[in-house]
């Protein structure tokens, strides 16, 4: 008796046609799965579409579309408080982006290459923001500033956002650094570069696409963040996302539809750009930026 079942000689179908049939079955599109996925996509985009649609509504209603109008956009542009908040948000995002990218890229390089006990400790510290929910980070940051006697302001938001964003940059960059061929850096040193020159002239240029992508992503994430900003901001001027939060809590203001639509469009464009940047440099792009894989 053999352990392997052999096709019997009397079997009518030839093996090839049977495989083909099985292949076809495996690749037949299952209608139920596709329907579920379709419904998922519909529900995913519906809220975004509703906000965008009613931002062009000529009336205040959120249920009845009365006619196309730019009146809420006009209202936003003429709202000095919101415009000031927009400026604040942009400044926060820029500073947080610059700070966290510089610290995060350096940290990623160090973490991958440094094989000491200090290195593994730093790796643990880096993980803390990723497993801490934003509300805890927010509360903790606020208490720290209050405890140090630092009045909450735009600057405190910047500091808190940098702290939170370093880990994101590091996670994105770390896998890229690990994937680099260490011989390339050695080759630079072999050709007369010091270790630092090797990092500057060879390693950083090789990381450039990932650095740019992470910078864009951090900009978008910080601009959209509201929990951390909510806990660490001063009274005036507040970041845009904090204003939106207050507005949607206390009743409908159609201006928010316009602001929200602009913010959604902006961050969708930025995140799509972050996914696309590696492709500009001819690398296989994409989603691994978000998952850090």
């Amino acid at each position, binding site marked *: 008796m053999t352990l392997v079942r052999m096709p019997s000689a009397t079997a009518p179908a030839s093996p090839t046609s049977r495989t083909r049939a099985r292949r076809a079955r495996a690749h037949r599109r299952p209608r139920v799965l596709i329907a579920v996925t379709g419904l998922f996509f519909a529900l995913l985009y519906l809220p975004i579409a509703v906000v965008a649609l009613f931002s062009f509504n000529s009336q205040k209603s959120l249920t009845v579309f009365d006619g196309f109008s730019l009146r809420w956009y006009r209202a936003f542009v003429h709202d000095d408080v919101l415009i000031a908040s927009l400026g604040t948000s942009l400044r926060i995002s820029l500073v947080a982006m610059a700070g966290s990218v510089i610290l995060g890229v350096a940290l990623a390089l160090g973490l991958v290459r440094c094989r000491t006990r200090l290195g593994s400790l730093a790796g643990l510290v880096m993980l803390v923001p990723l497993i801490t929910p934003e509300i805890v980070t927010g509360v903790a940051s606020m208490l720290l500033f209050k405890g140090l006697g630092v009045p909450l302001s735009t600057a405190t938001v910047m500091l808190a956002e940098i702290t939170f964003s370093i880990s994101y940059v590091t996670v994105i960059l770390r896998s890229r650094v690990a994937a680099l061929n260490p011989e390339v850096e050695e080759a630079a040193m072999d*050709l*007369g570069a010091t270790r630092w020159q090797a990092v500057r002239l060879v390693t950083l240029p090789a990381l450039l696409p990932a650095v740019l992508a992470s910078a864009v992503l951090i900009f978008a994430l910080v601009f959209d963040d509201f929990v951390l900003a909510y806990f660490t901001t001063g009274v005036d001027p507040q970041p845009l996302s904090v204003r939106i939060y207050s507005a949607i809590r206390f009743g409908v203001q159609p201006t928010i539809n316009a602001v929200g639509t602009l913010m959604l469009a902006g961050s969708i464009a930025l995140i799509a750009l972050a996914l696309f940047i590696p492709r500009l440099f001819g690398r296989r792009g994409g989603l691994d930026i978000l998952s850090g894989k």
Partner: protein
Amino acid sequence: MDATPAVRLDGVSKQFADSYAVHRLDLDIEAGHFYSLLGPSGCGKTTTLRMIGGFSDPTEGSVLLAGEDVTGLPPNRRNVNTVFQSYALFDHLSIADNVGFGLKRRGVARAEIRQRVGEMLELVQLAGFADRRPRTLSGGQRQRVALARALVNRPAVLLLDEPLAALDLKLRRQMQVELKQIQREVGITFVFVTHDQDEALTMSDRIAVMNEGRIEQCGTPEDIYEHPATRFVASFMGTSNLMTGTYRDGEVALEKGPALPVGTRSDIADGSAVSVSVRPEKIWLSDFEPGMSMLSGVIRETVYSGPTTTYLIELAPGLTLSVLEQNTARARMEDRWSGGETVEFGWRPEHCLVLA
């Protein structure tokens, strides 16, 4: 040899945790030689190369380049350059900038850089590729760029870490010839790490065979092949018929076969266990000469492979020798044997090596 060696390793060891990657290595490499470090993977040859290049510091001993102790100096302060196994090209720079990288680091004038890079690309037959990116080149071309990038700095010693390993067989053969030609042309000392014995034999002036962190034997390719000093070298270089036995009075009594006369060896004590090695192509099956060691056995297998035929001859139960015959034009039909036949065979005494 009174000239200062280009590279001298003086009692060099490299210890990782509690094992030695390289153990008390002494090695002199003469200037202008094509020198191969040959051995199986994990034998310490790459570690040795990295210590010469300055990428790894020895835990003991010192590295001397042209008589000067460079132990502990970083790579950028040694007059050696390296061709890496992965080529390690800078993907964000053009071919010309890759090749000119070292010269630029050393502050060579731009005009001179351009001229020397041009000459070097010419030498490696990549003259038209100056503005291309490494990514757009084939494996063989990238290999040449790596070579040009190292050679353009006119190092005293060029280190090559299995540079041909990633190429396919045909390209590898072609590059072997080319690399040897380039070495003769520029006259720079090459230290070449490889696990491929054919490659080492065809290219080198000298070979050091390494095993488990030590050098088993150094010498010319012919030396190493014809007169292996150890059992390891005999089996690693080509194929050998290795037989174990006991030495006594100019004879080795084989464990599983007859006693073979091997000549008196004053350096081997009577009664010590030894190996006897005879290369398959040194065994004769006809046209014997006087003074040969003669034996007989039964042919168990014949393996025809075009230019040669290999016979597996059973000398005694459990002891089979392989014998290689050339199928030249002069070979006679009657000098072909088939399985089951009993044949006489023999070898010249000098081709039977006793390895302690």
